[in-house]
């Protein structure tokens, strides 16, 4: 039986203390994607970590509001949506960092966009960040 249309939803408080819990959920969901492999999982986990940081720190604020994490696994891809009612923060407006200068911050959005195949943002309320990554049978990015 295929995974098409299956969705996993979790509502977590918009606090950094719950971040690792959500990351572990996403890491587990990566295993459902056929052909995903460890590199696929590492890259999705990295991108999701930055995305949820942004929502908690820059968007929803460090207290109060909740975040909905929706994960849609499929045979060849994983789609993740982060939905919140906090301040809008469009990560796609952030300029790329100058990696040669060894920046100590401002790397999160770059990591998200580098590791995911598609990143889209719709300002709300509710704000919705959608990220998608395809599994590559040949391991190519």
């Amino acid at each position: 039986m295929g995974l098409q249309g299956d969705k996993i939803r979790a509502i977590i408080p918009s606090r950094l203390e719950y971040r690792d819990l959500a990351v572990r959920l996403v890491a587990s969901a990566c295993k459902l994607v056929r052909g995903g492999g460890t590199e696929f999982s590492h890259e999705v986990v990295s991108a999701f970590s930055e995305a949820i940081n942004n929502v908690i720190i820059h968007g929803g604020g460090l207290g109060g509001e909740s975040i909905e994490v929706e994960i849609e696994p499929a045979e060849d891809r994983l789609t993740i949506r982060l939905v919140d009612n906090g301040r809008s923060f469009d990560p796609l407006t952030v300029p790329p960092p100058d990696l040669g200068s060894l920046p100590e911050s401002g790397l999160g959005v770059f990591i998200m966009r580098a590791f995911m195949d598609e990143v889209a943002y719709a300002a709300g309320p509710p704000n919705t960040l959608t990220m998608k990554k395809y599994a590559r049978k040949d391991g190519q990015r």
Partner: protein
Amino acid sequence: MKFTRLNKPEKTVLVIEGVLDALTAPEIRPTVDALVEERPTLIEVDLSSLRVIDSSGVGVVVSLYKRCKEFGGSVRVTGLANQPLAIFKLLRLDRVFEL
């Protein structure tokens, strides 16, 4: 996240285990600050038991490197694997730390 500082004759080793992220990075910063104040010749950051790192965690390591470089000290990163290694390679830090 757990971190341990080991003082050896030829170097200072900072072992970081678990998750180094936006939540835990502030916990280790005072230790890093104290370490830099001592102006050690060589610091080894052992990340062999680090499970997950994010950009905040990377910022701690890069900050340590840059501050030590200012007084001529060296920082070596060892034991990177899995997700932390993927991040370091993406950010081209594998060249900086000769991974």
